[in-house]
């Protein structure tokens, strides 16, 4: 379903990051993972994902600062962002951060897959 599509996964929780990376790779996605916004920016410097799965509350560089820096440096412009967070009022953050959509933690893994499929679109239609 996702063959060859790339996802950048940004979450400070080691367990969530590792499990989601394994689960998404098993679905055929090419996954890179970062524990905070700073690592994510470094990855984006020479790697272009098709979607970004972004936690908000992270030490070192949080999701809000990451989006600011991403836009400031023009990294991966237009790449859809899916916010995954336990923060309240996620709809407002989606709007403020220019994200495509959000999933409230704890979410269904199947819902994450469906969301990624929706925001990345059908690869056939992009060619």
């Amino acid at each position, binding site marked *: 379903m996702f063959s060859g599509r790339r996802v950048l996964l940004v979450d400070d929780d*080691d367990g969530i990051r590792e499990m989601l990376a394994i689960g998404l790779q098993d679905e055929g996605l090419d996954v890179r993972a970062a524990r905070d916004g700073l690592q994510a920016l470094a990855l984006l410097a020479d790697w272009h994902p098709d979607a970004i799965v972004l936690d908000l509350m992270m030490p070192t560089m949080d999701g809000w600062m990451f989006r600011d820096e991403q836009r400031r440096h023009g990294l991966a412009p237009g790449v859809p962002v899916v916010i995954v967070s336990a923060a309240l009022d996620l709809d407002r953050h989606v709007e403020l951060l220019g994200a495509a959509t959000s999933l409230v933690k704890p979410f269904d893994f199947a819902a994450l897959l469906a969301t990624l499929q929706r925001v990345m679109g059908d690869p056939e239609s992009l060619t």
Partner: protein
Amino acid sequence: MSSLNSQGSHALLAELVGLSRWLAVPERRLQAARGLAQRLGADDLLLFTHDPEIEGVLPAPGFARTLPDGRSWRAFLSAVQTHGTYHGELAVPSDGSQQSVLGVAADDGTLVVLLGGAPLPEEVLVLRPLLPMLAAALRGEVATRSATAQAVLAEQSNAEAEALALSLDRARARLEALAHENGRLYREAQEAVRARDQFLSIASHELRTPLTGMKSGVQILRRMHDRGEGSSPRAEQVLQRVEIAVDRLSELTQDLLDVASLRLGRLPLHLQSVDLVHLAKHVAGERREYLDARYTLEVSVVAPTPMVLGDPTRLEQVAANVLDNAIKYSPAGGNISVLLEPHDGGALLHVRDSGIGVPIGCVETIFEPFGRAPNAQRQHVPGMGLGLFLCRQIVEQHAGRVWVESPGENCGTTVNVWLPAAREKCV
């Protein structure tokens, strides 16, 4: 004597003041206040009382909790207490009695009335929108009473005048003190509500993190199982992460249960001789297994350290919490050193990190229940603010001490735990 401008207002004011006596019967309180508000055409009413049966600020049934413009009652009270407070003793000709009244009439016609006879008012009624006519009447009444009192004073002997002035001053001082006390109670109640909301928000976030790991992990394992990959090394890796998330959720709920137990009394301890050095090495060893290359974790025994008398499970909880904090509050990695030494007739454990540190003036705040340092919150370092609170409760139940030292933000932290020696040999 004095008179009100309007007979209608006069009757309402008399009823308002008379209500204070009626309100002395607790069962009638809400019913009476609500009835009066309806007769006044008021659409909101709050009854504030010191009666333990009706503690706090209560909206009468069917009335809104906020003002029509969205302000809270407390904010409104704060504003009217700052601007334009009128107070005095009002005569009510219908029954000839004197009642102490502190009226706060706002420009929009809202009226706050502290009602009650000597020595102190017991109720605060907030009526809105009270008829502007009545608010104006109250102002007029107070002004008239003041003028009348001055006239009486001029005609009476100095001694009588001074006695009357003293009496008026005392009454005024009592009412002002009460108004001040009410303000303090409002602020305390507001702070308690804010702390509760903040805790619910933090606890919700903290509990959702391991829940997310468990939920995603189990669902990923189910998909692996359905593909016939349930025994693969990758499945084992996910399973280990699920187990860690389960342990984390158990720890969080245990912390909440411990706090609940402490509110009822002390934590039960099962005392025996404990080797703090062995315990610290064991706890550090567990953490080394999952620490990545950004961290180093060393345990050093400076000199033979005495055994302590304690509950090994609770002391392990303390050591684990202090070490987990050192790791958690060093998000960029760094060196964590655990030192043990004999000190002041006991064993002293230091845990030093090179992490985000504790801002100046916050080394005690972080021992309060749900207390967190501002830099930790700002940097989204996870935590409910219960760990060090529980550590201190446990250590103090062991007749020990726990304290934190930090030169400031981004300068690292040292947590010190001292426990008295058991009367046994050193190790």
